[in-house]
C-alpha cells in the first residue's frame, strides 16, 4: 500500500496538493459533462437531433438575413454560408460555454456545500459540454463543404490551435464570471447581455475586413476577434488574410484572462461554500 499522504488544513494555506487533486478527480470532468448532456435530452422526443438542428437553423437564418438581404460581402471566393458558419462555430461555442460556465458554480451549489473536489472542475466541465456541441456542429460544417464542393487548403490543419484558443477564451472569462457570480449575483443578468452584445461586435455576420483601419486595433480588444479570424483563415483559405497586430492583441488578451481567471478563482474558491 502506498504511503498515505499527510494533508494539512490551515487558514490561508495554498493547496500544494491542488493540481495533484485535479488529476486524482479527473474522471469528474467527464462525469459532470456527461450528466449535463444526458439531462438535456431526457424525455425529449427527437433527443440528440436537437444538437444538430440548432446550429443548422441559425446558420440558415444568418445566411438569409446577412448574406441575401444585407448583402454583406463574403471573404475571398468561399460561399457566404461557409464564411458565416466558419465564424459561427467558434462564436456559438464561446457563447454557450460562457453562459454555462458563468452559472455553473451557483447551479451546482448543492455539490459545493456537501462534497469536496477541486471546484475548478465545475466550470471546466461546463465548457467541455459546449465543446461537445461544437464538435457536433463541426459535422454540419463538413456537410456544408461537401454540399458546396468546397475543398479547404492546408491551413485547416492549424484549426486545432484556434480551437485551443477558443477554449482558453471561454475558460478564462468563464472563470472570472463564475467566481464573481457566487458573491455578486448581478452577473446572472450581465452575462446574457455580454453574449448578445458580443454577437454584434464580433466578426460573425460580417468579415473583419469591413472594419475601418482606424478602429482596427480598438476592435481587436475583443478576444473573440482573434479566434474567429483564425477560424476563417484556417477554413476558407485563399485570400483570407490575418491582420497580425490585432490578432496578437486579441490572443494576448485571451491568455491574460485565462491566467488571471485561474488566479482569482483559486483565491476565492475557499469561500464558495460559505457564500453560495
Amino acid at each position: 500500500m502506498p504511503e498515505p499522504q499527510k494533508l494539512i488544513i490551515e487558514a490561508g494555506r495554498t493547496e500544494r496538493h491542488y493540481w495533484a487533486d485535479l488529476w486524482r478527480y479527473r474522471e469528474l470532468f467527464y462525469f459532470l459533462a456527461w450528466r449535463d448532456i444526458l439531462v438535456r435530452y431526457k424525455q425529449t422526443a427527437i433527443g440528440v437531433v436537437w444538437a444538430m438542428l440548432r446550429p443548422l437553423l441559425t446558420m440558415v437564418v444568418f445566411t438569409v438575413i446577412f448574406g441575401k438581404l444585407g448583402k454583406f460581402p463574403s471573404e475571398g471566393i468561399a460561399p457566404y454560408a461557409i464564411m458565416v458558419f466558419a465564424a459561427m462555430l467558434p462564436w456559438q461555442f464561446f457563447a454557450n460555454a460562457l453562459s454555462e460556465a458563468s452559472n455553473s458554480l451557483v447551479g451546482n451549489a448543492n455539490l459545493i456545500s456537501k462534497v469536496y473536489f477541486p471546484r475548478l472542475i465545475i466550470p471546466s466541465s461546463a465548457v467541455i459540454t459546449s465543446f461537445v456541441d461544437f464538435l457536433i456542429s463541426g459535422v454540419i460544417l463538413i456537410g456544408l463543404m461537401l454540399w458546396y464542393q468546397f475543398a479547404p487548403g492546408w491551413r485547416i490543419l492549424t484549426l486545432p490551435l484556434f480551437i485551443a484558443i477558443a477554449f482558453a477564451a471561454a475558460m478564462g472569462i468563464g472563470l472570472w464570471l463564475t467566481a464573481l457570480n457566487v458573491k455578486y449575483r448581478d452577473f446572472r443578468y450581465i452575462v446574457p447581455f455580454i453574449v448578445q452584445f458580443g454577437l454584434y461586435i464580433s466578426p460573425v455576420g460580417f468579415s473583419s475586413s469591413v472594419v475601418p483601419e482606424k478602429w482596427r486595433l480598438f476592435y481587436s480588444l475583443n478576444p473573440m476577434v482573434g479566434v474567429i479570424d483564425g477560424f476563417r483563415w484556417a477554413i476558407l483559405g485563399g485570400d483570407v488574410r490575418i491582420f497580425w497586430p490585432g490578432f496578437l492583441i486579441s490572443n494576448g488578451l485571451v491568455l491574460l484572462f485565462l491566467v488571471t481567471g485561474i488566479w482569482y478563482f483559486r483565491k476565492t474558491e475557499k469561500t464558495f461554500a460559505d457564500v453560495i
Partner: protein
Amino acid sequence: MSDVVIKVENLSKKYILSHQRQEKYTALRDVMANGVKNIGKKLLSPFKSHPSSINAHPSTEDFYALKDVSFEIKQGDRVGIIGRNGAGKSTLLKILSRITEPTSGKIEITGRVASLLEVGTGFHPELTGRENIFLNGAILGMGKAEIKRKFDEIVAFAEVEKFLDTPVKRYSSGMYVRLAFAVAAHLEPDILIVDEVLAVGDTQFQKKCLGKMEEVGKEGRTILFVSHNMDAIRSHCDIGLLIDRGGVKSVGEVGAVLEKYLDLSIVNSNSTTWIRNQEDDKVSILQEVTLLDENSIECSSFKNSDDITLEFSYRQPSYDVKYRLVFTILDAYERLILTSSNYDLISDVQPGNNKFIAKISSPLLAMGKYYVNVRIDVPNLKKIEVINKCVSFDIYENAYHQMGILGVNEDLGCVHVQVNWKVNTITSEV
C-alpha cells in the same frame, strides 16, 4: 496501530452576522418614498454603499461556530460526535472534509477521507438509478473502473434491481435513500465521516447502515459518526466527542461522554416538589407532587436501599366518574421503568382535594437519575391531564455489589436487586 490520523489544534471558524435595525413606518407613502429615494441613490453611484433608512447603521456581529477546538483521533477509532443542535458538529465535519476553510488553527490528516454529509449528493432526478450510481460514485471520489467493479454489490445492497432504469424522480423516498447510502457504503476510505444521515429511512434501513458501518470499523478504518441516537452511538462507537456551543466539552470513553451530554440537557437540577401554577386559567386537576424519604422529609437523593415515597394531591370534580392517577418512572435515557396507579383505591376518591401516597419498596432502582411523569385519566376513556418530568431524583448508591471491576459508566440496567448465587458442584474430571 495507534498512530494519530486526525490531529486538530486550536481550530476556530468565525462567521460574520449582520443585523438590520428595524424602523417602524406608519404610512405606506413613507415606505414607497424611501424605496424610490434609495433606487435613485443607487443609480447615481452604484458602488458606494447606501444605508437606507431600513438598513441604517447595520451592526455586525462575530459568531464563532467553533472556537479553539483541539483533539486527536487515532487509527481505527470509532468516534461518536454528539452535541445539541447548533453546537458546531456539522461545521467541524465540513472543515474536516475541506468544504470550508477554518478561520484559524490547524488540522493534520493522514489518509483518504470520504464524507457523507448528505444522502444522495449530486443525484439528478432526471437520470436513472444506474446513471446516478456512476455519477454519485464519481462525485464521492470513486473511479469509473471501481464503480463498475462494485456495481452489482451496490445494487444488491440497495435492493432496487427492478428500478435501475427508471429515473430517480420516480423513486419512493425509501428507495432513494437506500440507493444513495448503498453507493456511499462502498467507498473504501481510510477515514469515514458520517453526518446524521441515518435520521431518514425506516428501522430496517438504519439497521443495515449501522451494520455496514460496523463492518467498516472492523476493517480497521477510522469512523467519525454524528448522531442524536444515543443507543446507536453507545453501541457503535468507542470514543465520544461532545461539542457544545463551539467548543469541545468532553472527549474520551463513549459512556462517560454520553453522561456529560445528558447532564447538559438537564435544565434544572433535581426538584423534589411540583406545585400547580395557580395562574393557569384552565380548570386544573393535579395540584401537587412531592418526593419524600422514609422519614417523610422532602428528598431527592436516595440510596438503592431506601424506600421512595411519592405524595400526590389532585382535585376530583363532583362528577360521577372518578379520576384515576397514574405515574410512571423513567430513567435518564428516557426508558420507561415502571408504571403504577391508584386504581385499586379509586372508590375512596372524594369530590374535592384528594391526597394519595405511593411508596416504592427498596431495593429496586439502580444508580442513576430518574424522572416521574404523572397523568390523570378516566380508565379506558380519556386522558384529563399529563404532566411530564414533574419531579426528578437520583439514586446514588447500590446496596449490593457482586460485580467486580467494571468499565466506568457502563450501563448496568435500571434495576438493582438482590440475586442469590450458589455453587453447584462440578466434577473436576475433564
